[in-house]
């Protein structure tokens, strides 16, 4: 703390419990840890000096954006510094000609589209948390959104990062020109969960705002039929701007909260969006409706105007907080599966609801196979939390078994670290550790997250007694 006080003003170094308490967890509130100290630098030079000071003392550092992460990525170190990037809130430049925005990492996702809008441009990745989460957090998690089937993830929309290694060396990865020379370190840094570098500046791509957009809400009397309808849309050669599914428990939770106008009779609804020129949209909506009808949609409603379109989406975007209203706590899973296995995985989740006696509504980025089952539980009951964790672990391992992954967009963090042992073999985990060492030889930046030690996996294998990849080399994981 003294080392930090040497160059940071007193207000930028927090250590009293009442001040550090708000930083004890991210959006995954089941995991909490008070940091030894919180640093709130305001300039790049201060970030560099925080890192240098920590490196000199051998103290761990954990970067944090808005703390909306759902995997414990920003869980503080009890014996180190929580490095909050919250003060880095400036949009440095919007260049409408180049269609690029240069922003500081603490800028909130939604702000980028707001500042780009006057130029007829927008920033495409739109996580449901977009009014709160920061671009620095998005970069570190490679966040997605409801429009990423067509417009890509954070990875596809970031051109360049500037920041520091844990030793405080400045680095710049990527470029506003295409194909920066050398290895694609930008791809490595995006989604690295704050473990390879601290990001202090981000150049993002802006896209022209589509002239118009309309969304179809289609009801199905059977969840699997809705899943098949998704495949049918894609088989027809259509890439919708958004393609989302919610099951009945999810729509019921949402409807009480935001009155989005969802069909509460349906076993599942699909939201299927088209954007482009008005003619293009009319044409595509007609084609989508034909395909959906053919696939057994019981009812369909098309948004008539922008207000209605936003209302249909508002329900989907509010799904997590809505579920938070009907249950003391919820646990959000994030597995991705090949879409054709959806029926099987949903049946499995239903069986787990019975096995663990817990309810689990489902929201689903249907277009790209990313599931968000939400287990409802009460964290005040340690026993219920334990059941929830076992439930989640079984679902994630099922995702791996069907050829998918344990996390599509929320990251591994602390939360899914055991399931990494199921998805990867020891040699692969070891390579991840070597990559980490290249950037951070002493393991000081966000230590202990995202990649389990082999010892941890061995222990997990013993306690679980099944499913660990090393024991199942025949499983198709790739």
């Amino acid at each position: 703390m003294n080392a930090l006080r040497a160059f940071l003003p007193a207000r930028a170094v927090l250590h009293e419990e009442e001040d550090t308490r708000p930083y004890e967890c991210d959006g995954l509130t089941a995991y909490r840890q008070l940091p030894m100290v919180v640093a709130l630098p305001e300039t790049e030079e201060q970030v560099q000096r925080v890192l240098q000071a920590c490196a000199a003392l051998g103290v761990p550092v954990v970067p944090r954006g808005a703390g909306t992460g759902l995997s414990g990525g920003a869980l503080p170190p009890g014996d180190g510094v929580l490095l909050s990037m919250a003060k880095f809130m400036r949009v440095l430049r919007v260049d409408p000609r180049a269609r690029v925005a240069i922003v500081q990492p603490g800028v909130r996702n939604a702000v980028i589209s707001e500042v780009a809008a006057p130029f007829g441009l927008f920033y495409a990745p739109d996580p449901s948390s977009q009014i709160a989460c920061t671009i620095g957090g998005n970069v570190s998690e490679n966040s997605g959104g409801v429009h990423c089937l067509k417009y890509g993830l954070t990875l596809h929309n970031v051109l360049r990062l500037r920041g520091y290694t844990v030793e405080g060396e400045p680095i710049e990865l990527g470029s506003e020109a295409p194909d920066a020379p050398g290895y694609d370190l930008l791809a490595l840094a995006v989604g690295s969960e704050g473990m390879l570098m601290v990001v202090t500046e981000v150049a993002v791509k802006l896209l022209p705002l589509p002239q118009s957009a309309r969304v179809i809400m289609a009801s199905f009397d059977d969840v699997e039929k809705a899943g098949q309808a998704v495949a049918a849309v894609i088989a027809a050669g259509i890439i919708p701007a958004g393609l989302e599914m919610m099951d009945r428990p999810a729509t019921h939770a949402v409807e009480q909260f935001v009155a989005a106008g969802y069909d509460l009779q349906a076993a599942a609804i699909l939201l299927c969006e088209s954007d482009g020129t008005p003619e293009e949209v009319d044409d595509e909506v007609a084609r989508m409706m034909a395909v959906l009808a053919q696939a057994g949609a019981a009812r369909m409603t098309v948004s008539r105007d922008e207000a209605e379109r936003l209302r249909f989406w508002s329900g989907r975007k509010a799904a997590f907080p809505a579920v938070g209203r009907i249950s003391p706590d919820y646990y959000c899973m994030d597995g991705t599966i090949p879409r054709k296995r959806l029926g099987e995985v949903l049946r499995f989740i239903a069986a787990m609801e019975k096995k663990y006696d817990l309810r689990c509504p489902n929201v689903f980025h249907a277009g790209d196979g990313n599931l968000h089952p939400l287990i409802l539980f009460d964290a005040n009951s340690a026993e219920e939390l334990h059941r929830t964790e076992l439930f989640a672990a079984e679902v994630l391992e099922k995702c791996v078994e069907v050829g998918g992954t344990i996390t599509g967009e929320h990251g591994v963090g602390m939360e899914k670290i055991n399931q990494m042992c199921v998805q990867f073999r020891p040699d692969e985990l070891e390579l991840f550790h070597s990559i980490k060492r290249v950037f951070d030889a002493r393991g000081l930046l966000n230590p202990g997250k995202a990649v389990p030690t082999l010892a941890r996996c061995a222990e997990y294998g013993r306690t679980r007694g099944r499913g660990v990849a090393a024991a199942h080399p025949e499983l198709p994981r790739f």
Partner: protein
Amino acid sequence: MTLEPFQTRIRDAAQRGVALRLRGGGTKDFYGNEPRGEVLDTRAYAGIVSYEPTELVITARCGTSLSEVERILEENGQCLPFEPPHFGAGATFGGCIAAGLSGPRAASAGALRDFVLGARIVDGRGRALGFGGQVIKNVAGYDVSRLLAGSLGTLGLLAEASLKVLPRPAEQLTLRLEMPQERALEAMQRWASQPLPLSATAWHDGELFVRLSGAAAAVRAGVAKIGGEPLDAAPWLAIREQSHAFFSASPLWRIAVPPVAAPLALPGAQLLEWGGALRWLAAAAPAGAVRDAAQRAGGHATLFRARDKSAGVFAPLAPTVARLHRGLKAAFDPVGILNPGRMYPEF
């Protein structure tokens, strides 16, 4: 089919400390620094592993012919959106990804690396490792498969890879306009900031070519906005494969800049692609001058084709970034036997 033969070969080479030159069809032998070492031919490890059009993912072995992959996609109304150059009939799927080159549509659809979803590799110790997967969203572990894209075989042998694919556009149409470079740059930027279905642009010698792809209605609206004369014989294949007369010159520089960069004042002819972000230069200009001009414009220059590569093929890296490169090379290939020097002479 197993990876065992590759693993044995690599383990053996690592033990003997002998360099291996990973090679598919050899169509990109010209690219990067002079290949050296014993040839490890990847072509026997071929075949499509899985392809389900509705999942939008194809997985193939490295030795699979790139044309074969494209043909199967086409039969199903899909395509590789980044339109990779082949540079010869023998181009392989693995070589395409290792080279990391993208074609005309990359500026609008995304580059090769944007479509990589997963890879199985054999590293420099002969270990078979898998990263990423066959699903569109996956953030478990560092994104090693994308790191491998464009690594020129220096980190590992790319044995299998999964790519995201997309439907082929319903309509496609190319327009030709006449204008000098400066106005062409300005026009390309103006169009790119509007919701137009641009799928390729190229300018050379006073002629600007613009391709529109997408729904019929969108293409029609685009034509009305852009004007120019529709072409029957579009130049895209000739540009992508560099069979266009412009590319016969040597040396050939590939200069990547932010698209808004002003015309580069360099001697020699230029051909522009990607809305102005890619500027090919055919000239025997001194390497230093080309690299400086590229850097001043916020980009970098690659000596794409040349007999004399002593000036270095790729733009030099900043010291910290160079250190990270050496570290990664050592992590994947500790003995340094995989395509040594192909990207940068020091690793």
